[in-house]
């Protein structure tokens, strides 16, 4: 069973998304701030991390930077998921922050459940 870590401070979003991912056969871990997310990532060694950007304690970019700086963790694919202005997200963050954080994909919120699952599957290693 593939382990997915979802880090988002919106508890309702996490709850619903967990239901979705559970149904697709993923083992879902949740964290509601950047710091907790990083700790869970170290503890659970997930196969994929979904990171919200605007979060308390530590934002998604910073979490991503830490993950990608770690020799072991950096092979875990990271999807940045954010409600930041779609256009800003596609340009500014993709180009500047994206390069800095080396995230593997970016998805703008709101996202259709099917789209999220599709993008995750693209990043997860095939069995």
């Amino acid at each position, binding site marked *: 069973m593939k382990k997915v870590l979802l880090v988002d401070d919106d508890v309702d*979003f996490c709850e*619903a998304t967990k239901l979705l991912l559970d149904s697709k056969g993923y083992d879902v871990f949740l964290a509601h701030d950047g710091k907790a997310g990083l700790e869970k990532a170290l503890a659970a060694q997930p196969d994929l991390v979904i990171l919200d950007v605007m979060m308390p304690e530590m934002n998604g970019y910073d979490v991503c930077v830490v993950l990608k700086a770690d020799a072991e963790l950096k092979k875990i694919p990271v999807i940045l998921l954010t409600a930041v202005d779609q*256009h800003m997200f596609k340009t500014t963050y993709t180009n500047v922050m994206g390069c800095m954080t080396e995230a593997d994909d970016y998805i703008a919120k709101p996202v259709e459940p099917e789209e999220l699952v599709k993008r995750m599957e693209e990043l997860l290693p095939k069995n």
Partner: protein
Amino acid sequence: MLIKSSINILVVENDITVLQKCRELLVNEGHRVRTAESVEEALAIVQKQPGEVDIMLLSLELPGWGGLTLINVLQKAKREILIMTMSANCGEEAIEAVHAGAYDCIRKTFTADRFWTKINRAIEAFRLRRQLGVLTRQRQAVLSEVGHDENLSAILQSFTDGLVVTDWQTNIVLLNENAASLFDLTREKALGHPISDCIKSDELLSFFMRAIKSDSSLAPLMAGEEPVVKVGERAVRVHVDPVKNETGTAIGAACLFHDVTSISAMAKLRDDFLSMVSHELKAPLSSLLMQISVVLDGLAGDLSAKQSDLLGKAKEKTKGMITLVNDLLDYRRIQEGKSIQKIENLDMAEILRRTAELMRLSAEEKEITMSCDIAEELPSFTGDRGGVEAIFVNLISNAIKYTPKGGNVNVTLNKAGKEIRFRVVDNGMGIPSEDIDRIFDKFYRIKTEETRSISGSGLGLSIVKGIVDAHNGSIRVESEAGKGTTFVVSLPSEA
């Protein structure tokens, strides 16, 4: 005013020899001559026909009332008659006459040469005096017009806008109090000084220069939304026009200043607010969409048919709100002139293919047949990816929205000369001719029985127009109500 070349001269002399001699000389030169042999007679002529005497040749040796008395009378009556006196030897009495207002004195023993030397000078003096009189009256006329001057300046002061007028060298010749306080000037500091010394804005100076040069590019600039220039901390909306004389030559420039500093600040606040609200709306909408989706998919337990139906509608409404929020953000960005964020080489065919694929689902839901013809070998295009996607998405989703069940939507992308042409044709409800000019206006939506149930922000087409403009492209629309609509977007390619 034209000055008659011949002069009306009244000779007042009781010595007939002298009288005849004067008359002969003057008439020979074409002047009109009248004669009088006494002061009383002369006075009668002057009073009866005041304009008929320009110069009076007056003997100082008349019986009865002396010539001197006549001079005093005429001076008191402010007659514009030039008086040349004649006497035997131009002694004391002549000097006294000059004091009283006579111009000069001629000895009665004159030769023709001497006569003319004096008379010609007198005629010249008369003409100058008359010219002076004309100018004085004109000036008085102008002054009395400006007798409204006080009113006029009160009007200028009462403007809530600042007013500055310059001459053709951009030196300030007029400013009202509001202009002075707007730019922290005093009349002394400003009047007569170049505007560039008083109001620091190169842009403003260039408007004045263009107005003075009657540059034709200025008028259209001022006709639309007037430019806002920054002067120090202030934002000022300006309207500059040339000041022209009767022959149409620009002799200066006038500018009205409207302080929009607080309005600009408000606009920024409004944009920040809009942006904040949009983001604050998007996060909960993301949750809502995910929650409804998982429940609808039965991931939180089985649903009855009725529950599914209601939740399905709730999901559509949620998606509609998401589109609205995105439109607001897009619109704000275009307003800010940020519709082109990043210029890159774009594979238009690939972008359209992906967009059409996304839209296919909603077309199928409405049983609309959607075809997509993309020409091979399209010229290369550089532009903003998000912008191009927005053009495709908005036009295709509109076509699907406004085409009834079972209709057709045809999308084509091909090369037309040096342009890439994107065309969306539908056989839907069409656009009534009275609405067609307004469809690109923001928040404009066609309101008919058919469109009532279709949701939308009315921003889509104004966003498309903004993006097309930013790419130096053009968009045109052909439509007939009830028959269908065709949108054609032409974007300039590199090739």
